[in-house]
């Protein structure tokens, strides 16, 4: 992994179109600004882990014939 040291306000460029700026440093938190073409997908990495977990939970759904209808139509 390439590791670079940057100061507040400095940035790094990725390819020709992506720029990441250090916007704020506060204690253990760093705020980053990302400039990228609109089609670039940018997510906090945790979102991938959260969706994986949710998919796994979804796959634990148990199908019992008639049960869903009964509960959905019940009063």
């Amino acid at each position, binding site marked *: 992994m390439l590791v670079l040291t940057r100061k507040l306000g400095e940035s790094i460029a990725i390819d020709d179109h992506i720029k990441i700026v250090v916007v704020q440093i506060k204690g253990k938190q760093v705020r980053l600004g990302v400039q990228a073409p*609109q*089609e*670039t*997908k*940018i*997510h906090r990495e945790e*979102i*991938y882990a*959260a*969706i*994986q*977990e*949710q*998919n*796994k*939970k*979804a*796959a*634990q*759904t*148990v*199908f019992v*014939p*008639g*049960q*869903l*209808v009964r*509960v*959905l*139509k019940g009063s």
Partner: protein
Amino acid sequence: MLVKTKYFGMLEVEEKEVLKIPNGILGFPEDRDFCLVDSGDETFIIWLQSLNHVDMVLPLLEPKLFKPDYTVKLSPSECAKLELESVHAAAVFAILTIPECIESMSANLKAPLLIHLKKRIGMQVILQDSHGSIEYPMFKQLKLHTSLGSKEQAPLSVVSLESLPVSLTFDVQL
């Protein structure tokens, strides 16, 4: 081909009923080929059954049934991955999580499954601009919808992808 399913016994799945998800479903990297099964009950829920692992099956539901204002915005690169040339050629489904306590069921609105109906390609998309929750509670809305009119009971069947409803709830981001 004859396919073993987790809940629906052995089913005959035709070539044109196979849904390819080239990038897989997050958390299930080995599953690429699926079919959709209608359990035949009176709910609109259909089941995404993996053809690679019998135990991998997920319930799906069209989001508009419980959240009419739900929209999906795709980036041009996502459209390209899905080989989607028109927004009128795809269906949108939310993956449901239905725990033992059915009233606590939820839908993942942050990462819906998109299906190109003609090319039979699917993709789980993580929406960039949506504030959609990955665990959106929707039992009450679905119950209300079901009380207004449910699907007719039908025999258990493999769903023909071309028969799926085209979703008009999404757009390409330009």
